[in-house]
């Protein structure tokens, strides 16, 4: 339905007022028209009045911007990482009383460590998208000309960062409070196992957090969905750490467990990348 403009004089008026006043930051339609005709795919960030709107912003830039925002918000609110770390230490204390042991080693040590890390991770997973859901972060992101997978990458990296800080607190606390044999030699192996497992936890955690955040009872649904999915990570992580934490250092982590963790990370990494977009759109 084509409607004639209200008055023929509107357009020239607008043009002259634009040229006359040109308020700060509003470039005139003329320069825009000229620039739009010659878009470049690699417009550097410093280009004044970059009108290359039909070329999306480069993904690496977007991921970095998102990650920076994530970490900034976390630093200001401190709502994930301190909670997770404190929870882990408290859990070790609870385990001491529940198991009625002063020192654990081998299988038992691996079990205590991985259960604690897993449940502490769930706390972080619960909070991951809450700020975005409540403060319009999804819409703000969806309005930008960007590849939506950038949010997945950024959130996985952020969750990984939180997990690393958690482990920097939890593992020494564990060695101090509950672990019988000393960590020393086993530390590099343990770090490797934890690193592999962390990727799996971060990927599944991000996926489930995105799934659960816009539902009712989101705090309940998140762990309920994530725990069964993370059983292979627990299997791989615990079985691989067990010889490392054994008295007398029974040996290195079994190759098959590391392979299992790596396979898990690969499979779910690919699946997360494929389905994440469907969780964001409406």
């Amino acid at each position, binding site marked *: 339905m084509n409607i004639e403009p209200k008055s023929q004089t509107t357009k020239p008026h607008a043009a002259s007022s634009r040229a006359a006043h040109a308020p700060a930051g509003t470039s005139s339609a003329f320069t825009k028209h000229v620039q739009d005709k010659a878009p470049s795919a690699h417009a550097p960030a410093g280009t004044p009045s970059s009108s290359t709107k039909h070329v999306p912003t480069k993904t690496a830039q977007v991921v970095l911007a998102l990650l920076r925002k994530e970490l900034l918000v976390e630093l200001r609110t401190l709502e994930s990482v301190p909670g997770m770390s404190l929870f882990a230490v408290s859990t070790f204390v609870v385990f001491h009383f529940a198991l009625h042991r002063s020192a654990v080693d081998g299988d038992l040590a691996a079990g205590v460590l991985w259960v604690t890390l897993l449940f502490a991770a769930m706390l972080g997973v619960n909070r991951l998208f809450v700020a975005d859901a409540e403060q319009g972060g999804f819409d703000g992101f969806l309005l930008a000309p960007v590849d939506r997978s950038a949010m997945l990458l950024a959130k996985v990296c952020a969750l990984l960062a939180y997990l690393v800080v958690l482990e920097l607190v939890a593992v020494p606390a564990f060695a101090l409070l509950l672990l019988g044999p000393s960590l020393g030699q086993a530390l590099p192996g343990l770090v490797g196992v934890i690193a592999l497992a962390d990727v799996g936890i971060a990927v599944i955690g991000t*996926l489930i957090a995105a*799934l659960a955040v*816009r*539902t*009712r*009872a*989101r705090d309940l*649904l998140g762990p*309920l*969905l994530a725990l*069964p*999915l993370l*059983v*292979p990570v627990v*299997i*791989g992580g615990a*079985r691989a750490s067990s010889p490392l934490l054994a008295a007398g250092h029974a040996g290195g982590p079994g190759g*098959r*467990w590391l392979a*299992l963790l790596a*396979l*898990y990370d690969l*499979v*779910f990494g690919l*699946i997360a990348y494929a*389905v994440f977009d*469907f*969780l964001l759109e*409406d």
Partner: protein
Amino acid sequence: MRVPSSSVPSLRTLSIATVVAMGVAFGLVFFYAPIELEEGFLQKIFYLHVPLAIVSLCGFVSGGLMAIAHLRTRDSRWDLRSYVTIHMSLIFGVAVLLTGSIWARGSWGHWWVWSEPTLVSYLIVFLLYATYQPLRFAIEDPERQARYASVFAIVAGAFVPLNFLAVRLSTSYLHPRVLGGSSNLPGPMRLTFLVSLAAIALLFVTLCSYELTAKRTRIMLKSRSRILGYR
């Protein structure tokens, strides 16, 4: 919209086929298959337990495949199929766990054993899919509900084989597999097993078709009454 009367004859055919197949399987299990030496009569529950498990696992994975179709075509019919398939597999899953438990009690004297990797992995898969319906009901917007459910079905479908691998690795570390696989079954047992498998599969497909038809009819009824309500 066509009244799904054309699917009624095929429903009837399916039902008849299922009843026949189950009858034959029943007969074979009780009168043809030999009684196993070690476990005795109770071993016959194997012909119910394993086909139920295989069919429901295939159901879970097909639910994931249908979910992929739903996300690609945005056709809500695929979502309905995915939902019904997963729902039915979950119901069969309860039967799997029950029969598995009875079998464990009969064979090893405990209602649950950790030494049987397939049973253990099945429990984990069951716990995962048990969250499917709470997830769906926690989302009000129907389109988003379907989309999120499909994402879940895809992730869970990919999880099934990985999980079996992981548990198998971890269990064989502790105990050798007590159960013989279906690959080294003697002749009569193998035949009985395959017929039971076919019968259970038919049962699954028939029940799913019934539920699909019922749901489709209800949707159609709702949309017709809504149109009449507006006029």
